[in-house]
């Protein structure tokens, strides 16, 4: 790890002032990803600004009937919060599908949004990587890319964004509350992460001197018909090959609203309004879900080793939507896929 200066922020304004005064400084809360990347020499911040003691650790009701989740709420506390378990079980399930119990205890909600790709070439400082070292090239395009993107990739970068939590947040239509030097703003979670294009080193639309202060969940939690299915190379504690967040509102067997987001396939959680709207008013059947899957996977394209992910995604979408429709969500402890 490189030598760095350490500052403990006294409040949000202080953290932003410290960020603003040093372009190479980084915020640290849980540190689960940042410390790892510093040990690999991928991240070399001049200064760490410790925000772990700021009062951003509450989960509160919003006036609109949703929840406002403070940026520093640990992932485990969010997953096990009674309001989240009851009203947003899709989010609880997705969080529990990710990382390990120890890491979930450490990792903050905002840090989960800020985590970087697990592309092996991004981690390996001996190889070219446009995300780590802009303009150096992409080693994954002609390399080991079994786990890489099938949607939204560019010739510069085929990395995937690894969060499970954010796949559920995308499906639920969450908002990200941001504070910066000129005040506060909020953007949709879906607009928070970027596609790589020719600037894959920029993961998010967060400004250089901005920080996340909260995540807001809208009132609709899809608490009856939902499922989060994560397909990976081992049964636990592995990043997704494909993950699917599915949520439905049903009137009888007819779908009044559908939400569908994919993880492990792109530089951000992947949603398609066209796919979701195709299900409105339709019966909750495998055929209709397969049609929605085809719409969501429109434009999918494989690299040299990950062609299987396109068909795997299609099947996983149908399976997860059927689990949601039958109110039989995937368990994250009992691994048999119903």
């Amino acid at each position, binding site marked *: 790890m490189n*030598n760095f200066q350490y500052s403990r922020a006294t409040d949000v304004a202080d953290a932003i002032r410290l960020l603003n005064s040093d372009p190479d400084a980084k915020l640290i809360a849980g540190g689960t990803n940042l410390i790892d990347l510093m040990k690999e020499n991928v991240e070399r911040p001049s200064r760490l600004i*410790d925000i772990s003691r700021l009062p951003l650790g509450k989960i509160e009701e919003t006036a609109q009937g949703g929840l406002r989740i403070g940026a520093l709420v640990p992932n485990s506390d969010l997953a096990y919060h009674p309001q989240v378990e009851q009203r947003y079980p899709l989010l609880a399930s997705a969080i529990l599908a990710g990382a390990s119990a120890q890491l979930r205890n450490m990792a903050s909600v905002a840090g989960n949004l800020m985590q970087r790709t697990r592309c092996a070439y991004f981690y390996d400082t001996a190889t070219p990587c446009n995300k780590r070292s802009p303009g150096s090239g992409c080693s994954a395009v002609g390399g080991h890319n079994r786990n890489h993107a099938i949607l939204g990739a560019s010739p510069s970068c085929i990395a995937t964004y690894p969060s499970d939590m954010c796949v559920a947040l995308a499906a639920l239509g969450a908002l990200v509350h941001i504070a910066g030097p000129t005040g506060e703003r909020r953007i949709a979670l879906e607009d928070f992460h970027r596609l790589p294009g020719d600037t894959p080193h920029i993961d998010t639309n967060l400004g250089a001197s901005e920080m996340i202060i909260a995540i807001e969940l809208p009132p609709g939690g899809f608490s009856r018909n939902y499922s989060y299915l994560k397909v990976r190379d081992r049964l636990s504690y592995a990043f997704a090959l494909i993950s699917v967040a599915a949520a439905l509102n049903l009137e009888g067997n007819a779908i009044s609203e559908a939400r569908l987001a994919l993880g492990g396939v792109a530089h951000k959680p992947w949603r398609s309004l066209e796919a979701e709207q195709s299900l409105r008013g339709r019966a909750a059947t495998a055929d209709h879900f397969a049609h929605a899957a085809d719409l969501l996977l429109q434009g999918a394209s494989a690299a040299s080793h990950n062609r299987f992910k396109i068909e795997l995604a299609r099947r996983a979408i149908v399976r997860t939507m059927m689990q949601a429709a039958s109110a039989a969500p995937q368990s994250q402890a009992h691994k048999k896929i119903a």
Partner: protein
Amino acid sequence: MAQPSHQVPERIPVTLVVNGTKRDLDLAPWTTLLDALRDHLNMTGTKKGCDHGQCGACTVLVNGRRVNSCLTLAVIKDGAEITTIEGLAKDDALHPLQQAFIDHDAFQCGYCTPGQICSAAGLLAEGRAKNADEIRELMSGNLCRCGAYPNIVAAIQQAMGRP
């Protein structure tokens, strides 16, 4: 990528309450909790395995919650209560998990065992695991290269008082 800072900052005073004893340290800010325990306090019960949060050998309890000490900066935990494997036994009595690991032969080489036991102590405190499947899932952050998993699950079930 940022250029490295060549200015080495002052060491920072850090107080940790380790197994009930207040310990005052002066640490460089990049010292992990794991290195503070092993190299500065000479408490080598907590093991360094992968040093990247992938194996769980470094698991300790911080304010009662299990964490990977290799991915925790000591300075951030200034003032925290740390429980390591050295702090689980009370007087001459082994912690129920320590006894259960012996009863079930829940190790072979033993290198992962301090992390397994501290992680299991965190699991019991969380109260979320109710059966073997849930124990396996919620212990998945602790790897055992010897493959003692079935006996580890049995030991935790014994300490939990559940079949």
